[in-house]
């Protein structure tokens, strides 16, 4: 210990005994405390020339800058989040301030609640199918844009002409509000005035025309389609950027080895951008679990016909704000959170592989 560098180093630089040191009085501490809450220009002279002023100045700055964001965030985000766990254990209606603690009753009730299970089933369907369809199509389009063009001179791969135009158009749904998208697609699916049926009628496929959103067998598929439609452009742009950063000589090597384009895609491109795909998958899964606005705006009675398009967030909202069962609704929310966590955890396990650097 004697020749420990740290020990040697700290000894002489410790608080040097000051000869003219006054004893810190109670008034001094009060002054320091006042400085913390006062704006810098009101700093008392004695504090400003104090040895510890720089540290004080730093902490004063930190406190002042963090105060507003942290207080706002704690009151409106963190505290409701934790309150939700508590309310989920009560029979609170939401209308009165009286409620009693009922333990896990809400969760037990959920087990027998067929509406709840219908909503979970629909949400899980979205969670599984929407990312697969959206990411699959997104990858397909991105690869086409990046490598679908004709071979040009001295280029291993080449994008199609107008790739930029395609990306701009595909991205349209992303900049629009879900409310707009829900209303637009509600009109698209309209049995009389909607263009989908009109196209089918014109094409002579009269028998295929449907009352899309009123048919319990296909209403959910309509919701699923809109959800995918919204996000495909986002993933085309995301994956194109990722593919663009893969060095061209890797493709060149694959081409010289005689790889076809599908092989190039599955053996070269996909492994190299897997990190992006994986992150995108988690993000899309969370979006699919949330599909609130589309269902709420587009479908009949927000979740109908029957329970055919009811998703868990919509069910929660209805319980909380329409039927006055706030306690039960928060319990549903806790279950939704658990589903989200499980999904994220499964996806994390799924990705246990080495990162590829290039």
């Amino acid at each position, binding site marked *: 210990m004697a020749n420990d560098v740290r020990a040697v180093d700290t000894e002489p630089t410790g608080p040097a005994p000051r000869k003219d040191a006054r004893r810190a009085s109670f008034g001094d501490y009060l002054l320091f405390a006042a400085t913390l809450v006062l704006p810098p220009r009101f700093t008392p002279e004695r504090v400003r020339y104090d040895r510890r002023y720089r540290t004080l100045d730093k902490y004063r700055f930190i406190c002042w800058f963090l105060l507003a964001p942290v207080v706002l965030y704690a009151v409106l985000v963190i505290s409701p989040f934790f309150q939700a766990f508590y309310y989920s254990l009560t029979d609170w209606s939401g209308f009165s301030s009286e409620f009693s603690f009922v333990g896990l009753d809400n969760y037990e009730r959920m087990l027998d609640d067929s509406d709840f299970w219908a909503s979970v089933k629909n949400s899980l369907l979205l969670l599984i199918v929407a990312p697969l369809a959206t990411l699959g199509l997104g990858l397909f389009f991105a690869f086409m844009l990046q490598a679908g063009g004709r071979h040009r001179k001295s280029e291993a791969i080449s994008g199609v002409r107008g790739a930029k135009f395609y990306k701009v158009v595909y991205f349209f749904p992303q900049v629009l509000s879900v409310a707009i998208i829900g209303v*637009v697609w509600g009109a698209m699916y309209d049995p009389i005035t909607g263009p989908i049926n009109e196209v089918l009628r014109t094409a002579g496929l009269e028998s295929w025309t449907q009352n899309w959103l009123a048919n319990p067998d296909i209403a959910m598929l309509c919701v699923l389609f809109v959800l995918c439609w919204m996000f495909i452009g986002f993933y085309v742009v995301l994956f194109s950027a990722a593919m663009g950063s893969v060095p061209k000589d890797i493709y060149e090597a694959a081409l010289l080895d005689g790889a076809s384009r599908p092989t190039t895609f599955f053996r070269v491109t996909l492994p190299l951008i897997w990190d992006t795909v994986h992150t995108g998958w988690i993000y899309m899964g969370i979006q699919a679990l949330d599909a609130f606005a589309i269902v709420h705006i587009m479908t009949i009675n927000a979740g109908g016909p029957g329970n055919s398009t009811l998703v868990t967030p919509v069910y929660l909202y209805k319980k909380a704000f329409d039927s006055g069962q706030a306690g039960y609704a928060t319990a549903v929310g806790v279950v939704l959170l658990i589903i989200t966590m499980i999904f994220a955890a499964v996806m994390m396990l799924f990705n246990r592989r080495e990162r590829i650097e290039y």
Partner: protein
Amino acid sequence: MSGEIQVTSATQRTRDDRSADVVGKAPAPAPAKPARDAQGVTLNVFSNAFLVLWVVMAAGPLVWVMVNSLRESSDITGSPFGWPTSLSFENFTNAWSDANIGKYALNSLIILCGSLPGTMLLGSMAAYVIARFTFRGNRVVYMLFAGGMMFPIILAVVPLFFVMDNFALLDTRHGIILAYIAYSLPFTTFFMTSFFRTLPGSVAEAALIDGASHTRTFFQIMLPMAKPGLISIGIFNFLGQWNQYFLPLALNSTDPDKALLTQGLAELSVNQGYEGDWGALFAGLTIAMLPILLVYMVFQRQVQEGLTAGAVK
């Protein structure tokens, strides 16, 4: 290298063939590598067909709405496709004044004028402190914000409703603004923290030595340096807050005079079901989406980067 040259010349030949031949027919067997070449051509035709198809899918519904907004309601019912017979903006005046789309748009704008600068200011203040100062609890504050990105808003909405009620913030403009700021803070802070960490510290140090206060260093040195990050996150928040549907629905739905654009549109689509006024609905939708689409097309690169940055980080 020779392989590549052969491929190129073969493609050249096919292109000539195709000018005479029908597209998609198998090209004349080239001596070099016919299999791959044929594959290349079919893939090319196939891929372009799909790409064009999706252009129609992505933009079609929006174009359809915009074209129909210029037609008369009686024409639209029953015949969805058709061009406007006469140029009239009656639908737009209906939507703007009768269906109050103008008022709702103004409400949305007022909210955004408060919430967007607020988010950017508070978010970058917190991010700057977290990124550039070491103090006890730094990590905790950071995790607090970063963790907020993960959990769904819908879980907190019921208690949030009553927290807002207790503070008398429900159905008020400043209440909505504060809620928007609070729910945009996690990502903004997270993003800006990583951005501030990449900035060099020497400039700020020089400013401090020259006698600038911390506050002054932040506003006059660091914020201007962080401009690229601020633009990205600003676009992200602008679209996120302008398009927000869920928070206003839960926190701002009693007074129809204060409804925001997204709520107004949803309401309009419900009313349209009773009145059958498709024209006004489509005009309302056009009013809501055309400005956003135009702005997007002007700044498309920044918008695409701003929005995708969210998923990559």
